[in-house]
């Protein structure tokens, strides 16, 4: 029996390492972030550049990993089984001569993409590690500890144009010519002239003190808008008549009824 060659020994050691590694994988299956993570870990045991990795060998490693898991009754998540099925398919495609009638991507293309995925995942992991190794704020460098608040001041600028000024003045100077807008809009208005005419006919009868509202015309007492207008004009007319010396007016206190009586009659 020939003694084992150096190559044999290396091959043996490698498979041993692989076995140990894959057993470690099984123990650790919860620590993996999905089947791609397992594949990447297995790929590292091949000790070659990921670009030169044997996808065929990797597929077999992975299938063995799943097989052992089954043997040890370890529940693998569905993801891992889907990957196993796919790799079994890929393995057979890689081993068999290509079927010329087969459409779609070749086994080599599929294998190349898997290799790309592994390389990309590894690159992202390396980048993530580099990122986290950077100086970080709040750990290695710091922001200003006593920021000063910016206070908000509101500044109001008033503007007016020469036209505003002239219009305002023009308005003042011609105001008397206007009939105030709100007067025009009112229809329920008892005018001062009407009130004065009415009062002149009434004062002859006002021998005793009587409330101002008694002098309001019929039909103007109920609706507040009518009453207001009639009250104002009747009061104004009464003042006018007081001025003429025909009427006396009195009020006991603020807000108490205003009372009228013909002058001279006692």
């Amino acid at each position: 029996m020939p003694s084992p060659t150096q190559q044999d020994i290396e091959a043996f050691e490698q498979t041993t390492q692989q076995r140990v590694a894959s057993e470690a994988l099984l123990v650790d299956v919860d620590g993996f972030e999905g089947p791609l993570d397992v594949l990447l870990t297995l790929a590292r045991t091949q000790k070659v550049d990921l670009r030169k990795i044997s996808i065929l060998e990797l597929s077999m490693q992975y299938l063995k990993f799943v097989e052992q898991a089954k043997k040890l009754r370890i529940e693998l998540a569905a993801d891992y089984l889907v990957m196993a099925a796919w790799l079994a398919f890929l393995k057979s495609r890689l081993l068999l001569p290509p079927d010329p009638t087969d459409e779609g991507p070749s086994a080599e293309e599929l294998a190349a993409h898997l290799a790309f995925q592994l390389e990309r995942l590894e690159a992202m992991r390396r980048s993530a590690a580099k990122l986290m190794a950077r100086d970080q704020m709040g750990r290695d460098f710091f922001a200003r500890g006593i920021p000063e608040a910016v206070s908000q001041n509101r500044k109001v600028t008033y503007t007016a144009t020469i036209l505003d000024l002239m219009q305002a003045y023009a308005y003042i100077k011609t105001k008397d010519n206007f009939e105030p807008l709100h007067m025009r809009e009112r229809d329920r208005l008892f005018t001062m002239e009407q009130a004065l005419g009415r009062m002149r006919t009434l004062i002859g009868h006002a021998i005793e003190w009587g409330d101002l509202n008694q002098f309001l015309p019929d039909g103007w007492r109920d609706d507040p808008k009518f009453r207001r207008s009639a009250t104002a004009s009747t009061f104004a007319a009464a003042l006018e008549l007081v001025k003429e010396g025909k009427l006396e007016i009195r009020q006991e206190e603020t807000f108490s009824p205003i009372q009228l009586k013909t002058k001279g009659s006692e």
Partner: protein
Amino acid sequence: MTKDQNDTLFDAPPIAEQERMVEAILFATAEPITKKAIADRLPHGCDVSEALAHLRKRYEGRGVKLVKVGDGWAFRTAPDLGFLMQKERFETRKLSRAAIETLAIIAYHQPTTRAEIEEIRGVSVSRGTLDLLLELDWIKLGRRRMTPGRPVTFIVTQVFLDHFGLESERDLPGIKELRDTGLLDNRPAPGGLMGETSQEDDDSDLENTDQDDMFE
């Protein structure tokens, strides 16, 4: 190797380095920090007082200043730059009708008294209106009138003339010109000043409202 061993094994860093350290500490701490607290953070053997003195000098005349606050030290904005810490929001408002009318009367009738303004407008002039015009520097006090009570008069200012693009008060268009330009038209200008109902803050207005309610 622990920090303590470090401290005893090595000399204090050079003063320039101590200054850097103190600078970083003062920058990052959330409140003024005492010399003692700074010293506690620095490697053994540092001279905080000297580092602070260096630093204070370095920041002399800069945008921030090293100041003593109580028994602590802190960076603060240089006092002359405080205005940068205030954000100003500019708001442009149109002058109220009460104010523009009052201003117009003063401009056309100056020097004029408050009583005269009230007589022309037919309503009292609120103190706020005159204050605003004074504050805007558009009117100022003229000579007192030599009549009983010696009332103050108001006149317009150079700022007023500048703002309205007038060379002198005599440049204000006269009544005839106003009429010629159609400004004295009896019809209220659409959406203009004349159409607006008076919303001035004058006292007389307040009284009117009260009376309205009285008669309801």
